């Protein structure tokens, strides 16, 4: 009764969950591009394109991806044999258990006429497949909790996935192990299949089972006479063997039974067989019902992602399909952290300790954003910084075993956060190079907004200092802060020859350079000499510096002009961080 009710309940939740998650694939969007498409348009576009692929030569690529990347998981093998073994053991072990054991009555029974779970090869295979999963789970635990793999983060979802698999398999082994030892199970079987035997024959049979089949009995005790065992064996062969293979065939359960045997009698009487049975099927049903909402959904979303990316062309694909695929991709991430292992920006993470810089850690917040969840100010800032501190080297996309086109995902999500989020000073770095290359994808009127926001954040408070009509106070402490590192203090050697400004290609580009740039390089050196550090920090020049080092190269006084401009930039950015910290501490964050 409990079994049937919970089975149907979990099946209903499972299917409703799948429909719900599948629905989100067509409703949500991962970022900026493709925001105005309807769910139905995306659904029909996906349907059409799938049909088109099936009836085109691309089907070969699709099948190839299915065999090599889904079934054989070639990309994981390239990465690490251990990881490949882990995933293959769990994947194949579980699939085979599902069809042969869990769906035994439906699948195996219809395929093989002699199916009986206690007969070989099924009796043996159930243990083999279970052991495969268990071995995979052990490797997973070792990898996640014992091996020191750089930047491999373990979330609660990863722990749940490992945990539910472990509970299902361990409860299964304990259950079948205990059943082998169980006197109650033995007498039930005898009642059913050999109830007409005499007491003497029964004792002989029981002795044989204790001696040879792992049974733990309170009725018979060792040592057994050879002729009793012989008689028991005959009874066994006549009444049991035709539908019960030797218990040793279920090698793992048999060993479990042996380990349990000192306590087996007590456990049997306390009803542990029943308890374990409940744990086993309930954990299976919980796993099933929760699957659409857990990372185990990847058994559907990852193959879809791998095959979609095998046939989709980045430039030619319909935007509707890209939008849909990107939401599926968010569900396809298994948090394996291969991307973070090879991320080119990894030292940015080490420097800033913002986990969102690591690609694997960005997926969860992007999912939350796609679901329309509001994130608080500090969280949004952290994600924006994380997604912008990326060198666009595409390594994550190349190594992702789930075949996610992370490159395109970052571009898309980045633009949305840049447009809607707070100012991000990183926008003023060469990390913006790729955004510049892709500028035609963003409407021209809003493309500059993130740059303006960032410029405002780093410079706005210093800009009034640049007003030419303002009288300059040269008495201390107008000096402001000193430049950070000692050896950049070379500005004091400046004798005002203006070579730096003369050779600067940025200055040379304008007819009215001072209006455009605020201060020219030599004026910045002069300002610093006068202690007007903050005035210098407000000059647009420091952000329009190409870092071409012409100024520094041509300085007759060995002033490290370019390096000093770098230091001014660091100070301006530090000002933003400081202001934000004060704001957060003052309760700006709730």
């Amino acid at each position: 009764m409990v079994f049937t009710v919970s089975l149907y309940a979990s099946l209903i939740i499972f299917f409703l969950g799948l429909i719900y998650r599948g629905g989100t694939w067509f409703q949500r969007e991962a970022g900026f591009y493709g925001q105005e498409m309807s769910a139905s348009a995306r659904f029909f576009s996906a349907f059409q394109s799938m049909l088109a692929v099936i009836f085109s030569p691309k089907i070969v690529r699709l099948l190839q991806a299915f065999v090599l990347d889904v079934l054989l998981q070639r990309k994981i093998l390239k990465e690490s044999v251990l990881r490949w073994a882990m995933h293959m053991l769990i994947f194949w072990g579980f699939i085979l258990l599902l069809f042969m054991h869990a769906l035994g009555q439906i699948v195996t029974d219809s395929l093989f006429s002699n199916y009986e779970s206690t007969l070989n090869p099924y009796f043996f295979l159930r243990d083999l497949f279970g052991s495969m999963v268990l071995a995979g789970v052990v490797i997973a635990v070792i990898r996640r909790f014992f091996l020191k793999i750089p930047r491999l983060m373990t979330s609660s979802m990863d722990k749940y996935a490992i945990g539910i698999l472990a509970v299902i398999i361990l409860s299964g082994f304990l259950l079948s192990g205990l059943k082998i030892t169980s006197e109650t199970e033995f007498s039930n079987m005898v009642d059913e299949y050999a109830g007409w035997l005499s007491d003497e024959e029964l004792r002989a049979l029981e002795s044989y089972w204790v001696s040879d089949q792992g049974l733990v009995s309170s009725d018979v005790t060792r040592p057994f006479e050879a002729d009793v065992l012989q008689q028991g064996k005959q009874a066994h062969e006549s009444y049991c063997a035709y539908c019960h293979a030797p218990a040793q065939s279920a090698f793992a359960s048999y060993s479990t039974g042996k380990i349990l045997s000192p306590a087996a009698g007590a456990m049997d009487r306390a009803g542990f067989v029943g308890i374990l049975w409940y744990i086993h099927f309930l954990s299976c049903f919980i796993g099933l019902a929760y699957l659409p909402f857990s990372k185990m959904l990847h058994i559907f979303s990852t193959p879809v992602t791998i095959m979609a990316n095998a046939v989709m062309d980045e430039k030619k694909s319909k935007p509707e399909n890209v939008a849909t695929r990107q939401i599926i991709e968010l569900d396809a991430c298994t948090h394996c952290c291969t991307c973070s292992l090879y991320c080119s920006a990894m030292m940015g993470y080490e420097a800033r300790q913002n986990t969102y810089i690591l690609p694997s850690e960005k997926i969860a917040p992007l999912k939350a954003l796609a679901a329309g969840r509001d994130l608080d100010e500090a969280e949004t800032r952290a994600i924006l910084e994380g997604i912008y501190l990326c060198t666009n080297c595409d390594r994550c996309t190349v190594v992702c075993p789930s075949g996610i086109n992370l490159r395109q995902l970052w571009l898309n999500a980045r633009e949305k956060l840049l447009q809607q989020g707070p100012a991000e000073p990183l926008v003023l770095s060469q990390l913006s190079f790729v955004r510049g290359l892709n500028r035609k994808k963003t409407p021209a009127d809003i493309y500059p907004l993130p740059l303006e926001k960032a410029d405002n954040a780093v410079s706005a408070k210093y800009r009034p200092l640049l007003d030419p009509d303002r009288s300059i106070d040269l008495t201390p402490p107008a000096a402001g802060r000193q430049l950070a590192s000692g050896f950049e203090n070379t500005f004091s050697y400046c004798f005002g020859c203006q070579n730096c400004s003369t050779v600067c290609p940025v200055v040379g580009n304008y007819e009215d350079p001072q209006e455009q740039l605020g201060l020219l390089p030599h004026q910045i050196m002069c300002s610093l000499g006068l202690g007007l550090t903050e005035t210098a920090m407000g000059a647009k020049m420091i952000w329009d510096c190409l870092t071409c080092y012409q100024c520094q190269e041509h300085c007759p006084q060995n002033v490290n002009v370019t390096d000093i401009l770098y230091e001014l930039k660091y100070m301006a950015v530090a000002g933003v961080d400081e202001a934000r910290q004060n704001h957060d501490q003052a309760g700006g964050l709730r």
Partner: protein
Amino acid sequence: MERYIFFIGCQIPSRVPQYETAARAVLKKFGVELADIRQFNCCGYPMRNVDKKAFLLSSVKNLALSETQGLDMLVLCNCCFGALKNAEHIMAEKGPLQDEVLGTVREMGLDYQGKTRIRHYLSVLYHDTGIAAIKKQLHKTYEELNIAVQYGCHALRPSTVTQFDDPAAPSLFDELVAATGAKSVDWTNKLECCGAPLMGTNDALSADLFSRKLEAAIKAEADFFCTSCPYCQIQFDTVQQMLVEDNAGQKPLPSILFPQLLGLSMGIDPQTLGLGANKLDISKIESYLSKDKE
């Protein structure tokens, strides 16, 4: 046989992969062996504007990884080269930031002592292989081909740090180009920046700087730009293509990567050199090649 650790950075694998394949093919012919380290990360250059520590950590970790191999580093990208050299220069000083960087690198089980020599691709060809040896490998030479070489800022300057060539009158790249029979033309903006560092932060200024270079190169009757840096190449190739699309009627001046130019005259096939991977068509370069040498 010479052996180097190969550092290709981020832009080359993602946007200019032909630079890598062409460079590898050329070096192979000269017997230079390359070792790859998968754990390399960004050189730190793109973070340098806003985060000194992230920049230093990135460069120093790469150098520390190279030290474990005991080999020198061969760098293809000018900006990677500049960043690594600058980081080396900064790390030679003592300071709290330097200590912090060393601490983090040591926590990762690495160490940095500044032992790795950071070499630019062109320097290795010029100084180690040598013009004479290069000439021996040529199957064909170019005739009446005018090339505008783009040295690139971060290799040349600051010269005390990069020690690449004479910053006021460099000749290394010109001589390498001349070895192939092509003529390296004099052009006014030769040593100027390509504009790439401002791409994405001030696109108009970046485009202006490139346009000036383009004008100067056309005025000097160059047939091609020739680059040795992915940023310069993207600016001259990808970005120029974008600008040409915007201004109908403008004639582009295509850009060829140096190992593509050299490789063709060495008889390496155009496919290996990735000629087709350039955005602007450079196939006419082959028409400047002379007949096979005897």
